[in-house]
């Protein structure tokens, strides 16, 4: 009787130790190979060879010239669009929208933006200007695309 009771209560004990060892090794491996990847995106720019002679004949509308000047430490001192003073990048976007319009019938596909920057200007201003002219994020998160053709004016001699 005593023997029978003992055999009933006997559970087959699986030794978990090797499995847990391996599992923890796997965790460690994956944790150490984890790379926090910052999501990055690209802006296309049109830089054909011979940029000065590369004005495509189908471009009916002359390029919008965005000119930015820089102060001694590279900060942006002024910005003009087609010769008119522009306050900030939101203002630039508003003017671009006024110029090309949005939705169907927009001239955004036919318009080109030429960025003319002082050589000492900090590059982040260029990206902010490119962002301002190339699209608009609406409050609901959708993106309205504006001008996609962006080029640099030929660099000035320093």
């Amino acid at each position, binding site marked *: 009787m005593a023997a029978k009771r003992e055999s009933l209560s006997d559970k087959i004990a699986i030794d978990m130790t090797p499995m847990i060892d391996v599992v923890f090794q796997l965790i460690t491996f994956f944790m150490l190979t984890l790379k926090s990847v910052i999501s990055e995106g*690209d802006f296309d720019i049109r830089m054909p*060879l011979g940029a000065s002679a590369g004005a495509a004949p189908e471009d009916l509308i002359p390029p919008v010239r965005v000119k930015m000047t820089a102060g001694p430490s590279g900060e942006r001192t002024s910005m003009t669009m087609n010769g008119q003073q522009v306050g900030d990048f939101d203002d630039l976007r508003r003017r671009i929208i006024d110029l090309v319009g949005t939705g169907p019938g927009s001239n955004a596909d036919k318009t080109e933006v030429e960025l003319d920057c002082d050589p000492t200007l900090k590059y982040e201003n260029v990206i902010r200007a490119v962002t301002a002219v190339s699209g608009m994020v609406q409050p609901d998160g959708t993106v309205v695309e504006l001008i996609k053709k962006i080029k640099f004016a030929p660099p000035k001699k320093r």
Partner: protein
Amino acid sequence: MARKQRDGPARTDIDMTPMIDMTFQLITFFVFTLNFSTAVQDDRVQLPTSQLAKPAEGPSVEPITLQLMNDGRVIYSGEPIALQDVGGYLENEKRVMISASKEPSSATIIVRADGRSKTGDVQEMIKVCQEKGFERFVLRAEYDESK
């Protein structure tokens, strides 16, 4: 005596089930976040941020990444080089492409420039690439999710 013998070998059984469950969940998480992308990212370059810099759907065609640091030097395949030496390295890239019967103009130059670097340096770098026959450029920016 008998009672003592029973107490001795009695082991406290720890229930392993929740721990193993959690551990497997962690493994699953890390497996899914494992990133096989070979995208070049370098801490020496602080990209400017942009709300419109949405990640591209597919990999670029024949990408060549040039990273411009704050001090005007260029990181090419992990090594910092001077801006005026970029042309020589690109000449090699061009030769490799031509020997593989590809046109240099089909390559995409990914410009990862630091937000604090000078626009003139970026333009200089692009100009050097153009002189070597590269025509397609993308400006890379960090996606800003704040707004």
